[in-house]
């Protein structure tokens, strides 16, 4: 029997291939994700290990608000370096500073590759043991010089001796390129730009004169690491800490690890969706092949095969498909990982890569998931195959008896869908659930909804096909009419074929609805809060910019108010929170809806005033007059009193839970940055005024000026990138369902060989046959699209009802595009089956049985 099963597969190579392809794509996604994220992790690990390879101990600042923080640590006084060097255990020590260093090209633009960071650091070439870069051309940087990585140099054709500008904290500096270097780690650092300076230049560039971010220390050979750490701890000033080099490497890598882990789960989720859709395709294809093999199964039964043997034969077939598809999927995953590296690069998220890593776990998970999904999806068709009665061997045109539960289908599918919505609602609206609980409820809920709707969809096929097929029937003549009737004659089959596409379209619709909602509420929030005139942001729209950008605009002719929104982190009311700061003039820039206090609060925060928003005030029982004690990363503590409480619009506000005066902010933070700088001008927005601002900002190439409309679009562009990535990833499941349609059509053409022969015999042309198949495909795809879009809208409305900051907006154009995509998908899916149908030899087709 196993032989029968395997031979059966071999005898239907095309069908087997089409059936398994859904799984191939799903497994490829899972495998590709693992390879991608493992490779990124490995690359990062080797980067950080390389950086700290000669370091036995590392001294850094200590954030007063978060002991474990590895970013934005306060720098410390450079006098510590001399004291460290004097310790008996110390063989060598080097002090360094680092920060964001924007290299500026000849056209005055910041050199940037995707969203990758611009890393600047100081370098002491005399301390080779701490050095993780190798000079390739030119010399190490001296005063007012920079060395840059060969990658950036090659891409921008920069050579030693060139003059270049670089911007850190403060206006751009003009420096000379002294040399080009490579990073010794086997991994490149993604699309990052690297620039090295001598210590004094770096300190000036990053605004850290006489300060250090880190001291790296190596011990003498007759001392141990523990002894070294012990000695350092004796002289460690407050707000600093010491770790071993290995610990430091690990700590430094933590943040990226977290990011990569998130990326992994995120991508795996899409692999999961593709496999889920794939399971529908598999189940449907197997159901059809089994229906077509009714006589074969019946014959096997008459010659003594038991139901169990039939079941086993189908499962063996499914397992073989699963194994084959998974193995191909593994191989394809490798290619996909390569493709994803390229894709992320193209979409602006260049990732580091040090060669692809194919781990044992990847193979095992890929195989198990692929095989399991295939076998589970084949259970129902296998059960149906066992219900083929032996007498079907002698009867002409026997169809499969309806399953035992067929009459409960309407009830069952409705119950499933309703239960799914219920679970979704519980996950969304019941408070007090853990994050895992919420995700579990929503995940299982969504799964049930999709199952329920997919099962129910066969009942929607007849009316939907009637409506969607009407234009074809009117314009396409007989083939159009026949196509419509063909989709209606086995509603279950059409329904489950469409259901696979439905899932993908429901998800893209959900995403589109949410994105439109976020955009909508964000735009209206901007319109409400800020009406005048210009905003200055970083070129990438979100990076904090040095406060010198704002101060350089003060006093420029025509400028009335310059209000920077400072942003940082601090500890207050028992937790770590975001903190913002604004200065005088803010009342003329912002219009807030005050529940306590008034616009005047914005201008008069002074040294101890603060305002907060309604929700935060309620949560922490704050009202006007309450005092809040604030601890900043540098260790200073200050008490503020609440002067006002405002109600932010649904789309949010530029303000953190607590906002203080900007001059106070600048005293508390040693490296203050603005998130945005808002500017009002005499004469408001005009071409002349824009020019004035652009000119004034020439020394800050990383800053850009935007009007309100531009600002809104710029801020939304990040959302657009995310949206594009989501669309690309969801497109995968649409492609899987496309194969489902192809498969169903191919199988249907096999099944109708005789009928097609008859139609050809009575005068239907090849072209008409092709058109008939094409229409059938398009109708099926459109049924999936309509159900999917409606379901996506329902799911989106459910989510929007829960989430405050999203409002309902209708992305009509986008939804229309989805329908078009489904239509094109239908046309594409029909190419192969239509060709096969048209090629049938009339005489042979008539004799086919």
């Amino acid at each position: 029997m196993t032989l029968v099963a395997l031979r059966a597969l071999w005898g239907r190579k095309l069908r087997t291939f089409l059936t398994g392809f859904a799984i191939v794509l799903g497994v490829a996604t899972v495998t590709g994700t693992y390879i991608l994220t493992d490779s990124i992790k490995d690359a990062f690990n080797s980067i950080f290990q390389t950086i700290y390879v000669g370091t036995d101990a590392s001294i850094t600042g200590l954030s007063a608000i978060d002991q474990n923080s590895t970013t934005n640590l306060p720098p410390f006084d450079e006098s510590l370096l001399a004291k460290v060097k004097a310790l008996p255990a110390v063989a060598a020590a080097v002090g360094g500073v680092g920060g964001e260093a924007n290299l500026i090209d000849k056209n005055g633009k910041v050199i940037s590759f995707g969203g990758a960071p611009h890393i600047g650091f100081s370098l002491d070439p005399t301390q080779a043991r701490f050095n993780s870069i190798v000079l390739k051309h030119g010399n190490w940087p001296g005063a007012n010089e920079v060395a840059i990585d060969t990658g950036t140099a090659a891409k921008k054709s920069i050579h030693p001796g060139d003059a270049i500008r670089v911007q850190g904290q403060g206006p751009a500096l003009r420096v000379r390129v002294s040399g080009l270097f490579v990073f010794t780690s086997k991994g490149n650092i993604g699309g990052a730009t690297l620039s090295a300076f001598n210590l004094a230049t770096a300190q000036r560039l990053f605004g850290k004169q006489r300060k250090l971010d880190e001291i790296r220390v190596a011990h003498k050979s007759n001392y141990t690491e523990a002894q070294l750490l012990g000695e350092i701890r004796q002289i460690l000033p407050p707000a600093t800490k010491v770790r071993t080099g290995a610990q430091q490497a690990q700590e430094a890598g933590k943040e990226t690890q977290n990011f990569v882990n998130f990326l992994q789960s995120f991508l795996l989720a899409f692999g999961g969706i593709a496999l889920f859709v794939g399971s529908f395709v598999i189940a449907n294809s197997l159901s059809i092949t089994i229906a077509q093999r009714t006589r074969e199964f019946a014959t096997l039964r008459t010659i003594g095969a038991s139901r169990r043997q039939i079941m086993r034969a189908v499962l063996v077939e499914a397992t073989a498909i699963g194994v084959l598809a998974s193995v191909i999927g593994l191989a394809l995953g490798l290619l996909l990982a390569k493709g994803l590296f390229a894709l992320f690069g193209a979409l602006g998220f260049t990732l580091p890569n040090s060669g692809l890593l194919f781990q044992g776990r990847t193979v095992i998970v890929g195989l198990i998931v692929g095989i399991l999904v295939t076998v589970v999806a084949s259970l129902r068709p296998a059960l149906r195959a066992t219900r083929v009665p032996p007498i079907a061997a002698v009867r002409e045109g026997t169809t499969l008896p309806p399953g035992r539960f067929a009459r409960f289908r309407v009830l069952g599918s409705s119950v499933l869908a309703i239960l799914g919505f219920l679970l979704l609602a519980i996950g969304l609206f019941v408070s007090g659930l853990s994050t895992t609980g919420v995700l579990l409820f929503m995940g299982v809920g969504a799964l049930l909804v999709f199952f329920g709707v997919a099962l129910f969809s066969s009942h929607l096929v007849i009316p939907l096909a009637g409506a969607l097929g009407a234009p074809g029937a009117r314009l396409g003549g007989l083939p159009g009419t026949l196509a419509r009737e063909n989709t209606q004659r086995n509603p279950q089959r059409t329904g489950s074929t469409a259901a696979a596409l439905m899932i993908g379209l429901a998800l893209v619709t959900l995403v589109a609805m949410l994105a439109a909602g976020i955009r909508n509420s964000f735009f209206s929030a901007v319109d409400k809060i800020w009406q005048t005139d210009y905003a200055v942001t970083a070129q990438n729209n979100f990076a904090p910019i040095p406060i010198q950008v704002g101060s350089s605009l003060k006093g420029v002719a025509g400028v009335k108010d310059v209000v920077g929104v400072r942003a940082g982190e601090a500890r207050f009311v028992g937790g770590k929170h975001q903190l913002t700061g604004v200065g005088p003039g803010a009342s003329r820039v912002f219009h807030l809806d005050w529940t306590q206090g008034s616009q005047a609060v914005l201008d008069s925060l002074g040294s101890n005033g603060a305002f907060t928003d309604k929700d935060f005030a309620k949560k922490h029982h704050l009202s006007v007059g309450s005092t809040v004690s604030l601890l900043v990363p540098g260790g200073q503590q200050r008490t503020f009193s609440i002067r006002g409480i405002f109600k932010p619009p649904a789309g949010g506000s530029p303000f953190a839970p607590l906002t203080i005066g900007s001059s106070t902010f600048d005293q508390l933070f040693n490296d203050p940055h603005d998130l945005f700088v808002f500017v009002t001008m005499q004469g408001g927005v005009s071409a002349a005024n824009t020019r004035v601002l652009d000119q004034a900002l020439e020394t800050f190439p990383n800053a850009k000026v935007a009007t309100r409309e531009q600002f809104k679009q710029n801020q939304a562009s990040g959302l657009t990138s995310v949206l594009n990535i989501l669309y690309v990833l969801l497109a995968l499941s649409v492609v899987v369902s496309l194969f489902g349609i192809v498969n169903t059509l191919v199988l249907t053409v096999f099944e109708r060989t005789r009928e097609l022969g008859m139609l050809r015999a009575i005068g239907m042309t090849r072209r008409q046959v092709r058109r008939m198949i094409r229409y059938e495909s398009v109708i099926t795809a459109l049924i999936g699209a309509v159900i999917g879009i409606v379901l996506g809208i329902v799911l989106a409305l459910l989510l929007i009802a829960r989430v405050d900051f999203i409002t309902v907006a209708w992305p009509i154009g986008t939804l229309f595009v989805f329908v078009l995509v489904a239509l094109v998908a239908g046309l594409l899916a029909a190419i192969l089956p239509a060709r096969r149908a048209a090629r049938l030899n009339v005489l042979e087709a008539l004799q086919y049985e």
Partner: protein
Amino acid sequence: MEGGANGAAVTARAVTRRFGQGDTAVDALRGIDLEVGRGKLTAVMGQSGSGKSTLMHILAGLDQPTSGEVSIAGTELSHLGDNDLTKLRREHIGFVFQFFNLLPMLNAEENILLPLSIAGEKPDEAWFEDLLKKTGLADRRKHRPAELSGGQQQRVAIARALASRPTVVFADEPTGNLDSATSGEILTLMRASVDDYGQTTVMVTHDARAAAIADRILFLADGLIVKDMPRSDPREVIAAMDELSQ
């Protein structure tokens, strides 16, 4: 064995079969009593709609009678569950179909041995070789059905039915899909299987020439056995048919 070596291979008692319900109900069989003798070839003849196919389906356990009893090799069928019926088919029943019903992906040899491999039995080499020789398939054993002529395919099907040496072989219009020369070969083969192996066979046919090889010919009309003839030549069979259709 129940039923004994000399007992009937297949017996039917007061078998009726009604299709449909109410006004549209059709009585395909209206009370059949029958014993199929061992080692004999029994032909069931009748026109379309006479109930001959229904009778065979019921005798072979493929269909259930509305009333009455059927037993094969002494086992009463009506109380058997699916598993017992499967076991019965493996041990006691072979089928030959009008459209051959071979598995297209298996070659001749694999098709023939399929019932044995399904039952998990090892073939008796000598018997199998003899069977191949007898059916004239010795040089066709590795061919797929698609590479065989209709007559060859039916021979594979007959060999498959004989492979497990069942108590009874049911043949449903075995020559219905073949030209007359090929039909002759197939009938000769079926006759030989009865003569050489003592294979009890029940054959449903409407072909007088086919019926003429049988040891006994039953004529069905309107769901009843209307004539029971011993071995006769084709002309006698045709005469009987004409007489019945008057």
